[in-house]
């Protein structure tokens, strides 16, 4: 999904179901779809984020959990300190090159299905600090990101907005068929290589299988 050209869109846009998909639905039968719906309902209402903050954005993430904004209303206040029980990784803040391997390792150690929100300019692209020599220019160079929330820092409401979008995305996921979600497909990787500390930079500087800058055709 980081590469809009090659990988299929993670879920069909609402109201945009092709004939093949509809056929697929019929084959699934009603049982399958209701199972899917139950499954998605459960998951989307119980998103436990990893308790993990990187920088300033983390404060806004905490603020989103406080009384004023109360992320608990979405069932997502259980910030788990261990990645083993987390469903969502909110990369909230600047990912430095020194920190990147740790972030990726944590992501790897999360069980499927897992989601990633890049919160704030820094997590998306390095943000204001992208000119720094120790700043990773976007966490999506190493792990797949589902939702990007721009802002510096994004308001807590913006995080809630991102969470609602993620819920929508989860609710649209399918268990089987050609558009089956990432975690159901055996060939989709669930762990990503961790870069090593090099003499001048991380080695490698990005995961080529995952990330490529957009090409001119992408726009067309």
């Amino acid at each position: 999904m980081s590469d809009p050209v090659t990988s299929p869109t993670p879920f069909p846009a609402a109201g945009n179901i092709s004939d093949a998909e509809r056929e697929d639905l019929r084959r699934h039968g009603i049982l399958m779809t209701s199972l899917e719906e139950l499954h998605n309902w459960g998951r989307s209402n119980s998103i436990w984020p990893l308790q993990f903050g990187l920088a300033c954005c983390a404060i806004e993430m905490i603020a989103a959990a406080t009384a004023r904004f109360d992320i608990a209303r979405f069932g997502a206040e259980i910030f788990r300190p261990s990645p083993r029980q987390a469903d969502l990784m909110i990369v909230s803040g600047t990912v430095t090159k020194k920190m990147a391997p740790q972030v990726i390792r944590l992501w790897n150690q999360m069980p499927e299905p897992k989601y990633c929100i890049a919160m704030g300019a820094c997590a998306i692209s390095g943000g204001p600090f992208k000119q720094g020599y120790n700043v990773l220019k976007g966490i999506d160079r190493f792990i797949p990101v589902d939702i990007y929330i721009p802002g510096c820092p994004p308001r807590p409401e913006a995080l809630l907005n991102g969470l609602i979008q993620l819920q929508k995305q989860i609710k649209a996921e399918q268990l089987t068929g050609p558009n089956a979600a990432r975690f159901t497909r055996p060939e989709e990787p669930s762990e990503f290589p961790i870069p090593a500390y090099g003499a001048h930079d991380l080695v490698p500087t990005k995961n080529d299988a995952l990330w490529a800058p957009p090409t001119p055709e992408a726009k067309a």
Partner: protein
Amino acid sequence: MNPFTPSAPTPFASAPGPTVRAVHDEFHGDLLEVSMGPQHPSTHGVFRMVATLDGEQLVKLKPVFGYLHRNHEKIAENTTYLGSMPYTDRLDYLCSMSTNWAYALAVERLAGQAVPERAQYLRIIMAELTRLVNHSCLVGFLFNDLGTSFTPLLYAFREREKIIDLFESLSGSRMMCNYQRFGGCRVDPTPEWLAAAQQLVDNFPRFLDEYERMLTGNEIMLARTQGVGRLDATHAINAGITGPVLRASGVDYDLRKVDAYGFYAQFDFRVPLGAHGDTYDRYMMRILEMRESVKILQQAFKRLPAGPIMDPKAKLRGFRPKAGEAYGRLEGPKGELGFFLISDGSPNPYRYRVRPPSLINLTLLEEMCLGHTIADAVVILGSIDIVLGEVDR
């Protein structure tokens, strides 16, 4: 009272390297090296402590930095003076207002820039509000480290939101105020804003009372914090520890009094001092300082003069201070926050250096923690009050 005696033995004159305190030991086992952080619920960000444990007891503790090293200084040396101002917001992201001021202070020293009176008052108002924000959050986080299930933190954040709302309606952003300019402030608050702020400040002691009622006398809290993480004055001074942590050790050193920068000399407030230098004292310093801040704020609201908020000679663009250097410092909520600037006459600073209180206050972390349990280490770290944006910059 000054604890320093001229003939005091030189602390840490010998190599203060890894010290293994002789732990009174019955069943000495293997030492367990545990990494606390960078992803850890209570390292306040991406700080890492490598703790060597003997059972539950710490025999060694090495802090590891740099997980949030965002190259702030390098970027600032490639940006204009003005361009660095929003970056200072992100240094100590809990108190952007006072960080802004520290930077503005340094640049004003460097360029010999004057600041109008109203702006000085506004700066004091903002800085003290920031202190309230910082200290109440810190206390909340400290209790989180002590093992409450978020309740004090959430109460603290409830109050913080009110102040943050004020900042937002004034400067446009909740956290990244970018409010100070060289020679004044950016926005002039409206009378409604001032009234709202005053009301908030008047109500603040109520919150503090409730907070203290809930926690200060709590037996568990006393047992968890008193006598934990002792820091004596001589060592604290030598290690450059500043701010409430230093004053908790009984040293009377508050830059608001010592340097009397801004208009602090005209305000009537007291500097609380601790006697034991333990975690409890550090906690109480924050509470008492908040009460003093409220006093300062009330005076400031009463006396706020009318007038311009920017020096008419101040320049927004094309700002090129003369060659030279300056070190500006102020009493941030976490300690002495300084900016050291060298100008070579170009629009960008030649050297831009932040003196981060958070980093330097950690100098004696190991010494404070040794012999305590791992649970105490977390609390001691919490009581020092660091913010990683500033530690690693």
